[in-house]
């Protein structure tokens, strides 16, 4: 009795939708939408690939200026925030194409009975990555605070042994945190503990501790395993799984709805891959190499460009072990090393030249900290927004599918 009623209800609904919505079942219109969608994707990623002004060659007193220019660089916090915006835009547009004015039964028929569940499964995995990355940003905030201590110590005047040792201690902590390999960083149980022990051994009662050698790292690491997403969760595995069944649509599928689904899935996987690369993340071994991106498609050109850039950088870093490729972190690490060098060579009273170049580095570090202070929390919030968006979209798609299920059920 009710199915019949339902059927009729949404049949009428369908007609009125057809009348009202811009997307028609009419394939010509759809084709136009698809082209527009691809163009938008291409445009957005092109903008991400080529940030507006190229960085100026740094002159002596324009460090601040130079780093402002670096703000927009690929993998900087600001850039990551833009990337999140891009994702949200693409997602909204995609959902409109997928759902608006569409006959629900259309997306429950083959090949969608396979494509849609696959896509939904990818979105579940993306959610976990969002969570992992939000946690990772918490770690970055920890690095930021360590760097701030070093900055505060090295900004003291007169600069004495005490200040330098204090800074060194903070920097040593920072560098340990920054160079931790993924496995050590988070894998369950043993790995995490090992890190903690390592930093502990620098501590008191740990061997020959003359006053001078007491610059070691001590603050201790977050047992990242306890902040992980799940016991055996691995970002690498999840991203692999997301790409496993992700193939460009062929034949007559290539002209229709499967294409934007493929595009959106690729964008999602790519964005998640970038995020896991940017900040500390549970288990990402092998991710530097592995991300099949479609090479010869127009919309993907810039995306491929960004992917190559990051991938190259990642491969370089992977050998050394790195907490993340976020531009600020990379710079922080470099500055950290050279400031530790400065600290090692420091003898009171400070040599003028060394002190001046250190001061410049300290200023740069301070600037990085300031930027992190401003942008990390908003970035975290954006990623939460992405999380909720994905949750909502998933629910909406399921709702439509359910409706389709009712429609296609035989009317008794």
């Amino acid at each position, binding site marked *: 009795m009710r199915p019949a009623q339902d059927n009729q209800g949404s049949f009428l609904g369908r007609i009125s939708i057809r009348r009202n919505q811009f997307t028609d079942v009419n394939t010509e219109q759809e084709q136009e939408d698809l082209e527009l969608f691809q163009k938008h994707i291409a445009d957005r990623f092109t903008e991400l690939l080529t940030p507006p002004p190229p960085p100026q060659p740094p002159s002596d007193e324009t460090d601040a200026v130079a780093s402002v220019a670096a703000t927009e660089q690929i993998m900087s916090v600001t850039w990551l925030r833009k990337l999140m915006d891009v994702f949200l835009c693409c997602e909204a547009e995609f959902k409109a194409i997928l759902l608006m004015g569409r006959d629900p039964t259309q997306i429950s028929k083959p090949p969608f009975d396979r494509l849609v569940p696959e896509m939904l499964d990818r979105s579940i995995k993306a959610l976990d990555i969002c969570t992992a990355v939000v946690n990772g940003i918490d770690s970055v905030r*920890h690095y930021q605070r360590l760097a701030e201590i070093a900055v*505060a110590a090295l900004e003291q005047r007169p600069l004495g042994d005490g200040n330098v040792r204090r800074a060194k201690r903070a920097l040593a902590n920072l560098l340990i945190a920054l160079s931790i390999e993924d496995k050590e960083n988070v894998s369950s149980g043993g790995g995490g503990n090992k890190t903690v022990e390592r930093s502990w051994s620098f501590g008191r009662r740990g061997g020959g501790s003359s006053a001078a050698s007491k610059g070691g790292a001590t603050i201790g690491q977050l047992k990242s395993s306890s902040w992980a997403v799940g016991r055996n969760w691995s970002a690498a595995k999840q991203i692999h799984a997301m790409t496993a069944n992700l193939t460009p649509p062929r034949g007559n599928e290539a002209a229709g709805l499967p294409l934007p689904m493929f595009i959106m899935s690729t964008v999602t996987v790519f964005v998640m891959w970038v995020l896991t690369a940017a900040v500390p993340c549970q288990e990402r071994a092998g991710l530097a190499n592995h991300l099949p991106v479609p090479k010869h498609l127009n919309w993907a050109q810039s995306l491929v460009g960004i992917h190559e850039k990051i991938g190259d950088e990642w491969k370089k870093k992977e050998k050394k072990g790195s907490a993340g490729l976020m531009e600020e972190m990379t710079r922080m690490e470099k500055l950290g090393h050279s400031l530790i060098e400065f600290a090692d060579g420091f003898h009171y009273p400070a040599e003028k030249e060394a002190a001046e170049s250190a001061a410049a580095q300290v200023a740069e570090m*301070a600037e990085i900290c300031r930027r992190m202070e401003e942008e990390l929390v908003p970035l975290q919030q954006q990623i939460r927004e992405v999380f909720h968006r994905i949750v909502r979209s998933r629910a909406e798609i399921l709702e439509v599918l359910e409706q389709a299920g009712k429609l296609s059920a035989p009317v008794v």
Partner: protein
Amino acid sequence: MEKNDDKDPDHNDKSIIEEKADVVSDAHPPDESDGISKENVDVGNAETEHNPEDNVESEGEETHQQTLESLSEELDQLLSSLSLHKEEHKDDNTEEKEKGDQEDDDYFQIPQFVGKFLDLLEDKLSRYDSGEPKTVWYQDQEEVSSLLEAVDRVSNLMRLLLNTKSCLDHHEPLINHAGSIQQRAMAFLEDEFRILLEESVIKETALAMDDASSQRKSTEDAVVSQDQDQVTAPEPGDQEIEYPGYSEDVVALLRKIAEKMKAGGYGWECREVYLVGRRNILMRTLKHDCEFEKVSIDEVQKMSWGELEREIPIWTKTFKNCSSLFFPGELKLAEKIFPGDEGSLFCIVAHGLTIQFLGFAEAVAMTKRSTEKLFKILDIYETLRDSFPPMEELFWEELRSELRNEVTSARSRLGESAINIFSDLENSIKSDSSKTPVPGGAVHPLTRYTMNYLKYSCEYKDTLEQVFKSHSKMEQEEEVPANNSACSAFASQLMRIMDLLDGNMEAKSKLYKDIPLSCIFMMNNGRYIVQKIKGSAEIHEVMGDTWCRRRSSELRNYHKSYQRETWGKLLGFLGHEGLMHNGKIVKPNLKERFKSFNATFDEIHKTQTTWVINDEQLQSELRVSITAVMIPAYRAFMARFGQYLDPGRQTEKYVKYQPEDIEDLIDELFEGNTSSSSTATAKRRT
């Protein structure tokens, strides 16, 4: 110095405000002149605090003429004269950084013993580092005050040296030396702070035994957590959960260390150690005490319901404990060790964890729906509803609203899921079209399942009421007419399910070819429904008295038609017509009547003893009403016509049953006997 004292509160306020304004960025050094004027004021603060204690100086480890203690007094005098010296130039110093419009020509002589004091402190630190002292320093009260006061003096010295222009000009090497010792002392304190934080927490339960104050604290906590649990569903084993804290002594020591580190400008190291340490401790506790293990959303989707069903109570227990015990504990602890922190440390420790908790709730809401999940989903819903508000209170305003949004989203997801489960239930009732009648007209499994489900769900009545009210946007669109009635959304949902169930049962009753049996079937199911509803105050309240009355009268109708169908025919044999002819008995007719009666009764008995009435009361009601109709009629018939049969063989042949026999046999009906009833009859006759 008194002037300085006056400024203390001012200074404190200021630092609180600064800290509150920004958790992280106050590691940024304040711009220099600012820092100086602020620290200036601090001198008085630290000193007033310590002067009285100096009077009860210990003679402890006095070896030669100069010890840390003996020098302390001299140093204090120096510090106060130094600060007086500064006082005199205070007016100029306000603009100090602006590089001397006036040259500071009072060269301030720093006496030799200052260097000696620093050396002695360094020796002390070296001894600690080498592990020479047999006892740990913090277990010796004198050592504690000796060290901490010395550290304080170095910090005061540093501050004054750095803030006095003449010292900056003339005593840089000393400043370097003092700064170096200060750093060493601070690094030592930092390590000690971490060790205390990490290691004394594990001993806490043991310590609680002999430490009365901490014992009181922990029992208090236990009471809180029990109370919390009694409000909602009690989980076994919760009483044992305690906050991983410290004895009062350790807290006091941690606070002192934090205070000294902050006073020396090393507060950030201390906070960072604290953050890392407490986070790890908290996670460890959740894991050990609550068995809480993080699960990814993906994993939740892949879990069997059995596994997930086990995870959910662990989650709710953990969440409740965080809300009532762990989080308030963290907030209190941070406030105790870092007075004036106002929750910034707590927020860093707890924020990420809270978000993860909510992720699990979302993950469960995303799993494939099934009716069995309803109650666990509602458990999560209720936990968020009840335990989140006290939890959010602990967070800062900005985070609070963010978290609230997260919770709202999770709750909508769960609520929608619950509503959808009900519509799934509707669908499953609608589509249950099994064609096999239940033997004996007994209660149908679908009725049992549905009623038990509804009864159980009515234990969550208020929550469901709320869920339907807040999250049923879809339903309203679809079912506007159904919701127009005055009753609540959940009640009308329940009514709808009842109606569907009725409809389904009526269709199923048609599967019985025997009309009386289909009546019995309807009675059984109807009775079962009514009993279930009467048996539970919650569902009764939702369905209402009117509904129950209407339902009971329907049942009476089935009863009547059963009676008519089965026994009406039998009663027909006991009528008088056709037996008398011209005032005389027509014996063959009479014999025929008896025969038919016996045969029909036997047949009824034979079939209806296999029929089932599950409800005892209904069973006896039916038997009583049958007896009430049959026995008087039979007795009267016997009285009237029994005499016309010849006693002996003829009577034996035609009068098979005495009225008492009939009564007994009626009492055997609806037993659901599958074995033949004739044996029973045979037995009874003998």
